[in-house]
C-alpha cells in the first residue's frame, strides 16, 4: 500500500500531469481539515454537541456560535465536527469490512475459477438484486440502531462491489508469467494469492476504496436522515439535515450548513478518488 501511495504522490508531483498538483490542493486540504478536526474534536475546547440550551435555540451564526445553534440550542459547529467523526468512522470502516470479505470472495473466485467462481458470482448477483438502500434500511431496522450496526450493515452492502473489483483484477493477473513461475517452483495457492496476486490488487482496490468512502458517507447520511441510522442525540450530518428541515423557513442555515459540509466532503473525495483511479487505471480516464 505504501509503495502504491508513494507512486501516486510521485505521479501527482511530477510527470505530464503536473497541473493536478494544485488542482488537488483544495479538495485534499479540505479532507485533511475534516480528518484533523474529527480526530482532535475532544481537545479543541468545543462545547458538548448534545448539550441543549433552549433559550439559545436557532441563533444565527455569530462570534459566540460560529455556525449558530440548532432547534434545541445545540452548538452547530460542535455538532458538525462530531458529525464528521461519525461519518468518517462509518465511511472508513464499512468499506474495509466489505473489502476484507468481498476481496477474499472475489480473489478466490478469480483464482480458482470453476465451481467456486459460479457460487461466488451467484452470491454477488443475489446481494446486488436488492436495491441497496432498502437492504440497509431493513438491516438497521432489525439489528437496532447504533454506530456499530450501521457500519456493519453498510459494510455488508459493500461486499458485492468489492468482490467484483477483486475478481476482475485477479482474473487479469492470475495468468501472468510470474504467477506461473511461482507455481512451477512449488508455491502453494495461499502463497501465490497473498504474495504474488494481492500486491497487484492493492492499487485498484485503494482507488475503489476512496470512492467507496464517499458512497458510504452518503448512505450513512441517508439512513440517519430517515431516522434509521445513528441514533439521536449523537450528531450525524444526515440527522442534522433532517432536524434542520423543520426550521427551513425560520433558520435555514441549520439544514444548509451540514448540507454544504457534506457536499464539500463528498465532492473532495470524488475528486481525489477520480484522479487516483485515473492513475491506477489509465483506460478509465477516457470516459
Amino acid at each position: 500500500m505504501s509503495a502504491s501511495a508513494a507512486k501516486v504522490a510521485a505521479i501527482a508531483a511530477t510527470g505530464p500531469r503536473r497541473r493536478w498538483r494544485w488542482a488537488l490542493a483544495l479538495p485534499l486540504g479540505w479532507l485533511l481539515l475534516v480528518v484533523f478536526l474529527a480526530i482532535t474534536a475532544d481537545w479543541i475546547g468545543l462545547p458538548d454537541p448534545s448539550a441543549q440550551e433552549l433559550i439559545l435555540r436557532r441563533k444565527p451564526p455569530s462570534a459566540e456560535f460560529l455556525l449558530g445553534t440548532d432547534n434545541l440550542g445545540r452548538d452547530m459547529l460542535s455538532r458538525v465536527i462530531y458529525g464528521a467523526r461519525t461519518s468518517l468512522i462509518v465511511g472508513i470502516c464499512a468499506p474495509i469490512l466489505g473489502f476484507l470479505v468481498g476481496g477474499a470472495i472475489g480473489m478466490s473466485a478469480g483464482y480458482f475459477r470453476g465451481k467456486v467462481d459460479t457460487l461466488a458470482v451467484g452470491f454477488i448477483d443475489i446481494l446486488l438484486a436488492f436495491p441497496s438502500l432498502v437492504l440497509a434500511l431493513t438491516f438497521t431496522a432489525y439489528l437496532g440502531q447504533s454506530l456499530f450496526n450501521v457500519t456493519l450493515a453498510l459494510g455488508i452492502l459493500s461486499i458485492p462491489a468489492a468482490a467484483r473489483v477483486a475478481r476482475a483484477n485477479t482474473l487479469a493477473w492470475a495468468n501472468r508469467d510470474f504467477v506461473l513461475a511461482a507455481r512451477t517452483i512449488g508455491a502453494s495457492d495461499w502463497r501465490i494469492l497473498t504474495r504474488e496476486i494481492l500486491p497487484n490488487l492493492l492499487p485498484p482496490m485503494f482507488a475503489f476504496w476512496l470512492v467507496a468512502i464517499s458512497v458510504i458517507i452518503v448512505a450513512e447520511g441517508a439512513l440517519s436522515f430517515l431516522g434509521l441510522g445513528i441514533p439521536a442525540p449523537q450528531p450525524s450530518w444526515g440527522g442534522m439535515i433532517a432536524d434542520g428541515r423543520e426550521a427551513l423557513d425560520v433558520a435555514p442555515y441549520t439544514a444548509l450548513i451540514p448540507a454544504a459540509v457534506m457536499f464539500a466532503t463528498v465532492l473532495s473525495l470524488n475528486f481525489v478518488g477520480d484522479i487516483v483511479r485515473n492513475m491506477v487505471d489509465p483506460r478509465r480516464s477516457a470516459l
Partner: protein
Amino acid sequence: MPWLARQLVRLVVVLFCVTLLTYMIVNILPGDVAIVILGNLATPEDIAGLRADLGLDRPMLVRYFDWLGSALSGDLGRSYRNGEPVVQAIVDRLPVSLQLMVMAQVIALGIAIPVALLAARRPGGLFDRISASAAFGFLAMPNFMLGIVLIYLFSVSFDLLPATGFTPVSEGLWDNLESMILPSLTLGLIEWTVLMRVLRSDLLTTLKEDFILLARAKGLPPWRVLLQHALRPSSFTLITILGLNIGGLIGGAVIVEQIFALPGVGRLLLGGIFNRDLILVQGTVAFIAVGFVVINFLVDMLYAVLDPRVRHVRFRS
C-alpha cells in the same frame, strides 16, 4: 439449453433466493413480533398464545414456504397494525411511486441527451468542460440534501411550488404535476449525470465510425449526423444503465417520498419499519426486490432485441 430458457431459469433462481433472503432478514433478526404486538406488559402465556396463533412456533423454513405459497397466489398477509391486506396497501401506493420514477427518468433523459450531444460535438471544448464539471458537482449531491435545497429555493425563498404533500390526478392534472415537480427534480438532477457521461462516451466512439465519415462526406449538416446517424447506435449502454440505475432510483424514491410526504411504496415501507409491522415490511421489501430483478431481466432482454450483436455473442457462449 437455449439462451432465453437459461436466462429464465436464472431469473427464477434469483427470485427464489431474494425472497428467501428477505424472509430470513425479517424473521431471524432479533425482536419478537408477539412482544411488539402485545407490548411489554404481556404475560408469557399471552405471548406463547399469540405466537401459536400467528404460527410463529413452527420452523422458519416451513413458514417461508407457506408465505411463498400464498405470495404466489397474490396474498402477502395482513398488516399487524390495521389489518389491511399488504397487497392492497402496495397497489394503492404504487401509482405514486411509479409516477415519481417515470417523471424523474424523463427529466434525467431530457437533460442528459441534449447535453451529451452538445458535449460530443466538440470534445474538450468549452461546453464539454462546463457540462463535465456540472455533472461532477451534481454527482456529489446526496438526494436528501438536494431535496432540502430545492425546497428551500422553490418553496421557502420564492414560494413557487408546494414544499410537501401530494395531490392525486383526480383533483386536477396541474395540481398533481405541481406536487410532483420538486420530488422528481430531486431524483432527475442527480440521475442525468451518469446517463450523460455514458452517452457522451458512446457517442465519441460512434463518431469515429466510417458511416459517420460517409454521412459527413455527403455534406449533411453536423446536427443531422448527430441526431439521425450517431444517436441510435450510441444508446445501447444508456439503456443498460437506465435498468441498472433503477435500484438507486428505488432507494432514492424512498427518501424523496419521505422528504416530500408522498404516499408511495417507499413511505409505506418506512412506516412499516417504524411501526415494527413485520408482515408489511416483509411484503414490501419482497415486492420491491422482485420488481427490481424482473425489470433488470426485461432490460437485458430489450438490450438483446435492440442490438443483434449481443444476442449472437451470447448464443455462441
